[in-house]
């Protein structure tokens, strides 16, 4: 577990010729990389927020359905399919002559560019990450003792107050682990930035990929990776909780 991280830290101090240097870190603090970092965080934040907004009500409804395990399975099922396959099918769906545009035509809105936009990028990312958000929230909601809710209602709290004062605080751990599991990988997404966003969205993941595979500048790639690891640790500490609900 520790070895790969140590290796990455070691590589981050090497230049392309294998000499010891601090230049990679200097380079990271140039406007190009800082802007990239900012945009990575921004998109990861958007993806996490949208996932949460969709996932919480979904998980809530799931716990109220009759065959909840079956529904849960159906939601998790798409995550068994390879990411690349899903991305390719979205290229087809969102394309100019794809299903989504055909639907827009039917409703009289007319063709829109969907592929290679921020919208398609966020949509597909949320689609891919949402099972990981639903699971911990579902588990937390499922474990919630219904008598708390009854008690709250008996004491005269409205539906909203019950949610705000009872349900949400008791499932907050699930929300936190869901956010962690979505935010962290969303920060270093790379394949989707090319396939769905057509490199119109540039994240740190794109840069890492290019440095490792094209330039073979492992030093710079590792430096970015070190920053990603540090930011992940910070996020874990900020949202840290001793016992985590659901999958981690």
């Amino acid at each position, binding site marked *: 577990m520790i070895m790969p991280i140590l290796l990455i830290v070691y590589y981050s101090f090497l230049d*392309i*010729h294998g000499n010891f240097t601090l230049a990679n870190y200097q380079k990271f603090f140039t406007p*190009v990389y800082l*802007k*990239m970092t900012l945009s990575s965080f921004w998109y990861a934040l958007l993806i996490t927020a949208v996932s949460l907004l969709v996932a919480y009500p979904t998980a809530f409804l799931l716990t109220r359905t009759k065959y909840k395990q079956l529904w849960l399975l159906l939601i998790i099922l798409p995550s068994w399919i390879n990411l690349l396959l899903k991305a*390719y099918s979205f*290229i087809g769906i969102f*394309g*100019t*002559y794809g299903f989504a545009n055909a639907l827009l035509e039917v409703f009289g809105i007319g063709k829109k*560019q969907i*592929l*290679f936009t921020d919208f398609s990028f966020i949509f597909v990312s949320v689609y891919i990450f949402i099972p990981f958000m639903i699971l911990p929230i579902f588990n937390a909601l499922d474990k919630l003792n219904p008598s708390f809710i009854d008690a709250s209602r008996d004491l005269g709290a409205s539906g909203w107050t019950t949610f705000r004062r009872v349900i949400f605080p008791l499932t907050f751990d699930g929300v936190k682990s869901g956010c962690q599991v979505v935010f962290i990988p969303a920060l270093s997404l790379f394949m989707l930035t*090319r*396939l769905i*966003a*057509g*490199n*119109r*969205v*540039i994240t740190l993941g*794109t*840069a890492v990929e*290019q*440095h490792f*595979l*094209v*330039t*073979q*500048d492992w030093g710079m790639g590792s430096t970015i990776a070190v920053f990603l690891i540090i930011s992940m640790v910070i996020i874990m500490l900020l949202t840290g909780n001793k016992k985590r609900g659901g999958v981690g």
Partner: protein
Amino acid sequence: MKKLVQTFAVIFIVSFALMFWVQRLNASEGYAGGNTITVYNWGEYIDPDLIKQFEKETGIKVIYETFDSNEAMMVKIRQGGTSYDVAMPSEYAIQKMKEEGLLLKLDQSKLPNLKNIDERFLNLPFDPDNEYSVPYFWGTVGIVYNKKMLGDRTFDSWNDLWADDLKNQILLVDGAREVIGFGLNSLHYSLNDKNKVHLQEAKDKLVKLQPNIKAIVGDEIKMLLVNEEAPIGVIWSGDAADIMWENENLDYVVPEEGSNLWFDNMVIPKTSKNIEGAHKFINFMLDAEVAAQNAEYVGYSTPNKAAMSILPEETVSDERFYPSPELTDRLEVYENLGQDMLSYYNDLYLEFKMHTK
């Protein structure tokens, strides 16, 4: 839950057993001596009938494996796990592999068919005197455009891409050297230019192209152009030939300022265990009729002069894929820029990508 774990355990054990068995099988075949060779090529880059023909003629069994990038291929050859006997890297990869000592020298006395290759394609800067490599296919970088969607518009110059009315119409292939390369070409600079002022100028010019760019993608560019997702694409001639079969509205042009001339070549990696067989295979592929059949199947341009006389007239006289000598003179092969310069190219490319609309 326990049952699930058990099922997975069984699946794992079975797949590992199978993997082990396959490896044993491969090893026993691969190391059995003089009667097998392992060929490592790009996907869909050979007529499979020719492999059968080779096996029949020589009695050598061919194990055929494919790769999808020069980098991936080099990693596998460096590791040396499989004893590849023949590989087909691109020209810039050959320079790298030569430097790292990953290639064996060719014995040209065992390659009498080398005389079939057009002299224009021999003794090139990336491998003087063809000590290590023989060209397999070649091509250019140019513009694919959709006649139906664009009407009469043509692209004689790279600068035509910068037209104001082409907002959001262009797809680019995601390659630093290709993109920076045509940026340099559009300014009449060499695409191997190492002058940082020129490079900066090219980047600034490319940034101005951003509003016209719809997306920068990888191999999907072929599918997207066939589906008419955008009317214009900057791609390799080989890919262009491929998709022009699929969509008749597409046409390909190499702009007059010049462009890249690329080669995929046959080499013998140092992992080879059957050097004799490898030479036989390369010589077989250089045969006029074999090369002609292969070129017809793959659809790329062959460097084989003798094969060109066999190929149909309309194929060989197609200036889009067999450009005239005057244009060929303006094409440049990528030179190895050295790590520092390559890094600089990539930094500029990243900066260019950062400038989204």
